[in-house]
C-alpha cells in the first residue's frame, strides 16, 4: 500500500510540475505576442497574411495547454481522492484502483476532445474545414 501511495504521489508531483511549466509558458508567450502586436500596430508596419496567421498561433497554443492543465487538475484530484481513501481503508486498494483507472481514462478522453476542439485550422487538425469561412 505504501509503495502504491508513494508512486501515485510522485506522479501527481510530476504532473503538477508540468502544469506549472505550461502555465509559465502560456504567460510568457502571451506577453511576447502582445508586445509584438502592439509594436506592429503602433508602427503601422506592413504585414502579410502569413504573419497575422502566425500571431494567432499563440492563442491556439494557450488553448491547447489550458486543456492539458485542466486534465492534469482532474487527474491530480482523482489520485488525491484515491490515496486519501487508501489511507483510511487499505481494503479499497484493488476496487478503488479500478475506479481510479476509469476516471483517468475519462480525463484523457476529455483532454483529447478539447485538443480537437481547440485546434481549428492549425496543427494539421483532421477536423479542420478547408473552407475557413462559411455563411449561413
Amino acid at each position, binding site marked *: 500500500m505504501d509503495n502504491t501511495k508513494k508512486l501515485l504521489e510522485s506522479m501527481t508531483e510530476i504532473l503538477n510540475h508540468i502544469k506549472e511549466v505550461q502555465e509559465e509558458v502560456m504567460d510568457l508567450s502571451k506577453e511576447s505576442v502582445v508586445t509584438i502586436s502592439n509594436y506592429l500596430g503602433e508602427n503601422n508596419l506592413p504585414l502579410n497574411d502569413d504573419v497575422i496567421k502566425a500571431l*494567432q498561433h499563440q492563442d491556439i497554443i494557450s488553448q491547447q495547454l489550458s486543456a492539458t492543465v485542466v486534465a492534469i487538475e482532474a487527474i491530480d484530484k482523482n489520485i488525491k481522492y484515491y490515496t486519501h481513501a487508501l489511507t483510511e481503508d487499505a481494503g479499497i486498494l484493488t476496487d478503488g484502483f479500478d475506479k481510479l483507472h476509469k476516471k483517468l481514462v475519462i480525463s484523457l478522453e476529455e483532454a483529447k476532445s478539447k485538443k480537437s476542439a481547440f485546434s*481549428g485550422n492549425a496543427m494539421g487538425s483532421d477536423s479542420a474545414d478547408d473552407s475557413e469561412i462559411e*455563411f449561413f
Partner: protein
Amino acid sequence: MPIVMFIDDSETALASTKIATASMPIDVKQYLSAVDALEVINSGEVMPDLIITDLNMPVMNGLEFLKEIRGLAKTKKTPVLMLTTETKDELKQQGKALGLTGWIVKPFNPTQLQAAITRVLRLG
C-alpha cells in the same frame, strides 16, 4: 463608420483581429468577455453593426451570447460571425438555428476576414 464588435477572452486573439482589420473603414470595439459586451449593448453605450465573437469563453460562451442578443429588439437582426477553433457541424447548426450569420475557423486568413466583414457590412 460602422461599428464592429470583437469578443474574445484571449488578448492575443483580439490583437490579431485588430491588426488584421486596421486598414478597414470600421470602428473596432473589443471586449474580453461576452458579459461585458452584453452590458454595453444593454446600456446603449455601443450599438454594433456587426459582432464577431469567439465561441469557447468562460462565464458566457458565444452561443449563449448570441441567444441573449437575439432576445433584444435592438440586436435581433444584427449580423453575428462566430470566430472559433471549433469545427463541429453540431455547433454550427446550433448557431444557425439562433440566427448566426457565419462561421470563421481560427487561425483566420486576414484577407478572408476582411472580405467577410466587407460582405456583411456591404462596404464594397
